[in-house]
């Protein structure tokens, strides 16, 4: 009989099942896979931001030692461009501009790193050597490396068919209501900001291995992906024209993603195509510099916002105008990030009754920009939470009281915002109070004075955020422009002797799904987690799936598993009723045991599953043998995690360096399955948020050269840049999914940046500083301190 001891179910701080292989060097990442007869691809990339290709001479390269193939776009006739998964419409109802995104450059390159040619050779070094022998005749064109340059009158065009470099000009909300509210406002506060461009930099560089079996006609792609089924669909149907049944996509252990491994990338199509063309497996592995110029980047918004308040500080209206950089081509999710993942969040945690936002998406000669941890929600949160601090200071309100006064109150849920979303649950007063207490907000002035005595400038900053995740209700996103459904799929396979295999369309690349999902099974079916295997990341094993992003794995994928377990229990009850000669209505199931209510008759799940697979005594007329169920779960709404983050910093006035000294996070992520994993997710998200606020910034020069193209030039947070992060949760349950969960993967990256900048500005308040753009580098702060006197 299966008995769960000690408790391993929902809420247990269970150690991770996946750790042993990672700690002993037995993880199996894509670059660890080597297939018989494997060759290596090197991709020659554009050194120019914008140039016409007058000619490519590959003849010398083709003759180099070890080379088995050299390919350019001329070889890829009949192959489609990389598709975009969202279509946004302009204010006038016309669709966005959607220029082709070729797998290899066709006549023109549009950003530094744009792939131009591919060399396949016996070794990695030979492929690289041969690529140096390719001659590309570039006619360099003037480039637009920033949105300002791209929108200037007469600017060079990134795509000939896209006038003004504008991808779309979109809006949401009630402009007339906003104007009316501004007309009667006591206070108007204007705030302008740039949300800095970031490079996700998962520690594992992207990698892809293509293989072709001539006997069966089956293609296999091993790839560093967050969603292998989506890659199979996009690459098979739109790029290479391979039917799903002949295309297997495997995403094995993946070393972090943070969004950057959602998208279908050219290299995946290149190795899959080249493997079939050459009849040999082909591996491509990015080096880090290549990752900087080919992985999708994140953020990069320029925004002007105005907030109207009445005399008591109540928010009356918000008006936002944002320009969002798309880069040179549309990446898979790019168009939805600054629209439906950003502007719809502009109510934040506040009761602002009227909101209007317009968003202009702009093509530039830079790497494509797409979703990066938080995706749109960090940009919205940074804007709002800085704006509230700016408004409090400008209008003379206490910044905490101003927040409290405008919070959506607990009794107002479900709460319909003026920008489309309906929040189901939350308690912003509670998370604020808990965070202020944990951060000892009340005792801060004493710490400021103590720091001042040591010559340090100390500041504190709050951020009260909300986000929308658990992506997403299919019909809703379909009406907004998504070209796919966003349900998730879960299969529960109870084996004859009672162990369980879970097949999930979600993909783990650090989130600990093998443990968390096993806990769901332990909790509901009473099977010890040691007897639960979670399988993900292989289209040949898992029926279907939409993958992992937007903090959806538990809220959507876990809910699918929960539904599948309901089906298992329902079938098990029928089998149990037959075996125990009772009516189905009298069978109760709890933690692995089917009982006849009010009697001592009981059968374990293992006994029931054995009967299902060895159906000698079985209701075979009414029930099929076996005990395996699949559920597709489509969420009814987004989930809405929220909370309060408080950052405390000290600045060295001599150097301008900001030291993070305390960080407190109190998050409402709904029901917590494994507190250890949730805390880890929040700590990691906060680290990326602090990185955005203090360290990270992707920089192009005016010619479109990527200046921050390595980890020497792009400041990744290191251990001594960060401080301990205190994490606590305050739970209100999601009201519309069966688990009550909301999602925890992105809250840190969303809540942290404005808390940090609010703290930095607070530390510099005596210098008359009202805002500092991210990243708040020592140079910026030192210049402020040098340039002004108190």
């Amino acid at each position, binding site marked *: 009989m299966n008995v769960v001891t000690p408790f391993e179910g929902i809420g247990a701080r269970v150690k991770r099942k996946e750790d*042993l292989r990672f*700690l*002993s060097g037995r993880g199996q990442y894509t670059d660890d896979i080597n297939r018989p007869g494997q060759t290596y691809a090197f991709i020659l990339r554009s050194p120019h931001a914008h140039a016409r290709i007058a000619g490519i001479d590959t003849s010398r390269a083709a003759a180099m030692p070890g080379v088995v193939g050299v390919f350019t776009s001329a070889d890829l006739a009949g192959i489609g461009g990389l598709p975009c998964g969202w279509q946004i419409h302009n204010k006038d109802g016309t669709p966005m501009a959607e220029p082709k995104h070729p797998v290899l450059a066709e006549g023109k390159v549009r950003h530094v790193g744009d792939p131009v040619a591919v060399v396949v050779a016996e070794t990695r070094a030979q492929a690289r050597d041969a690529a140096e022998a390719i001659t590309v005749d570039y006619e360099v064109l003037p480039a637009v490396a920033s949105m300002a340059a791209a929108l200037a009158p007469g600017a060079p065009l990134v795509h000939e068919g896209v006038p003004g470099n504008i991808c779309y000009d979109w809006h949401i909300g009630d402009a007339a209501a906003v104007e009316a509210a501004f007309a009667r406002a006591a206070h108007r506060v204007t705030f302008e900001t740039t949300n800095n461009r970031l490079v996700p930099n998962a520690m594992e560089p992207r990698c892809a291995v293509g293989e072709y079996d001539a006997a069966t006609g089956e293609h296999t792609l091993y790839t560093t992906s967050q969603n292998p089924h989506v890659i199979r669909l996009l690459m098979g149907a739109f790029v290479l024209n391979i039917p799903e049944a002949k295309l297997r996509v495997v995403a094995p252990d993946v070393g972090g993603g943070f969004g950057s491994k959602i998208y279908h990338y050219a290299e995946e199509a290149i190795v899959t195509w080249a493997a079939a063309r050459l009849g040999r497996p082909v591996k491509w592995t990015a080096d880090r510099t290549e990752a900087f110029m080919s992985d999708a980047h994140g953020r990069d918004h320029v925004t002007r916002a105005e907030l109207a308040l009445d005399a008591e500080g109540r928010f009356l209206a918000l008006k936002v105008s944002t320009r969002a950089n798309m880069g040179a081509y549309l990446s898979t999710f790019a168009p939805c990030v600054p629209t439906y993942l950003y502007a719809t969040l502009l109510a934040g945690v506040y009761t602002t009754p009227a909101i209007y936002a317009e968003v202009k998406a702009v093509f530039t000669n830079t790497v494509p920009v797409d979703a990066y941890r938080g995706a749109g929600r960090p940009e919205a949160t940074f804007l709002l939470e800085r704006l509230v601090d700016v408004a409090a200071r400008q209008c003379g309100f206490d910044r905490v009281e101003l927040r409290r006064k405008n919070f959506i109150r607990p009794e107002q849920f479900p709460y319909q915002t003026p920008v489309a979303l309906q929040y189901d649950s939350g308690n912003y007063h509670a998370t604020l109070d808990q965070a202020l207490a944990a951060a000892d907000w009340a005792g801060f002035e004493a710490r400021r004075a103590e720091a001042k005595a040591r010559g340090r400038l100390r500041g504190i900053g709050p951020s009260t955020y909300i986000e929308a995740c658990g992506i997403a209700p299919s019909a809703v996103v379909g009406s907004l422009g998504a070209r796919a459904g966003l349900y998730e799929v879960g299969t529960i396979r109870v084996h004859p002797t009672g162990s369980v295999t879970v097949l999930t369309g979600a993909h783990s690349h650090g989130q600990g799904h093998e443990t968390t999902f096993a806990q769901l099974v332990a909790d509901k079916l009473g099977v010890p987690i040691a007897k639960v295997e979670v399988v993900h990341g292989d289209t040949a094993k898992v029926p279907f799936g939409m993958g992992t992003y937007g903090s959806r794995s538990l809220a959507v994928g876990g809910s699918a598993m929960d539904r599948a377990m309901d089906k298992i229990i329902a079938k098990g009850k029928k089998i149990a009723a037959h075996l125990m000669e009772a009516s189905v209505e009298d069978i109760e199931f709890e933690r692995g045991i089917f009982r006849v209510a009010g009697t001592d008759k009981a059968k374990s799940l293992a006994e029931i599953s054995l009967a299902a697979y060895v159906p000698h005594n079985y209701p075979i007329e009414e029930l099929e043998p076996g005990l395996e169920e699949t559920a597709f779960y489509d969420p009814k709404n987004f989930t809405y995690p929220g909370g309060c983050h408080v950052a405390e910093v000290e600045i060295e006035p001599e150097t301008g360096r900001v030291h993070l000294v305390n960080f407190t996070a109190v998050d409402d992520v709904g029901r917590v399955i494994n507190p250890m994993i949730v805390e880890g997710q929040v700590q990691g998200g906060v680290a990326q948020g602090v990185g955005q606020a203090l360290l990270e910034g992707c920089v192009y020069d005016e010619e479109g050269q990527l200046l921050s193209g390595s980890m020497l030039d792009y400041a990744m947070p290191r251990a001594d840049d960060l401080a301990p992060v205190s994490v606590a949760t305050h739970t209100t349950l999601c009201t519309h999914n069966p688990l009550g969960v909301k999602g925890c993967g992105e809250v840190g990256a969303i809540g942290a940046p404005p808390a940090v900048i609010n703290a930095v500005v607070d530390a510099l308040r005596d210098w008359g500083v009202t805002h500092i753009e991210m990243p708040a580098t020592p140079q910026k702060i030192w210049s402020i301190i040098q340039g002004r006197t108190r």
Partner: protein
Amino acid sequence: MPQVTLTVNGKQHTVEVEGRTLLVELLREKLRLTGTHVGCDPSQCGACVVHVNGDSVKSCTTLAVMCEGAQVTTIEGLAAPDGTLHPMQEAFREYHALQCGFCTPGMVMSAVDLVRKNPQGLSEKEIREGLEGNLCRCTGYHNIVKAIAAAQEVMHGRRASLAAAAE
């Protein structure tokens, strides 16, 4: 083609390499020890850290031919032959100091060397400074620092177990 003879995780190998072959390429591609990872180019991230003659080195910046006669330990060789985890590996698991696992081998190998060379014990600040050469994008380092602080107590014999170190 030059040959190099070295001992990796207690086993001697003689391998043909190019002059430009890096130690990490020898480990991953010739010996199929894929636990050692490459995350940057080069020397920035520390995912490739192994021990050479008892010192932690970045194998992505070490030529294979420099390792003639060397004793190399990789993450695959850190646990006891019976599979018992090294206290640092155990501490990483106990304190949830890994998420995606990609930086983990290098992080663990760096941490072992850092602790071994500081028998006096390291403060939180010293541990953070000691990890300057290793990047992790998942954890925010919070739990890595805690794991190393606990592991040093066991490695230096000040506590009998991680459970005791946590008290």
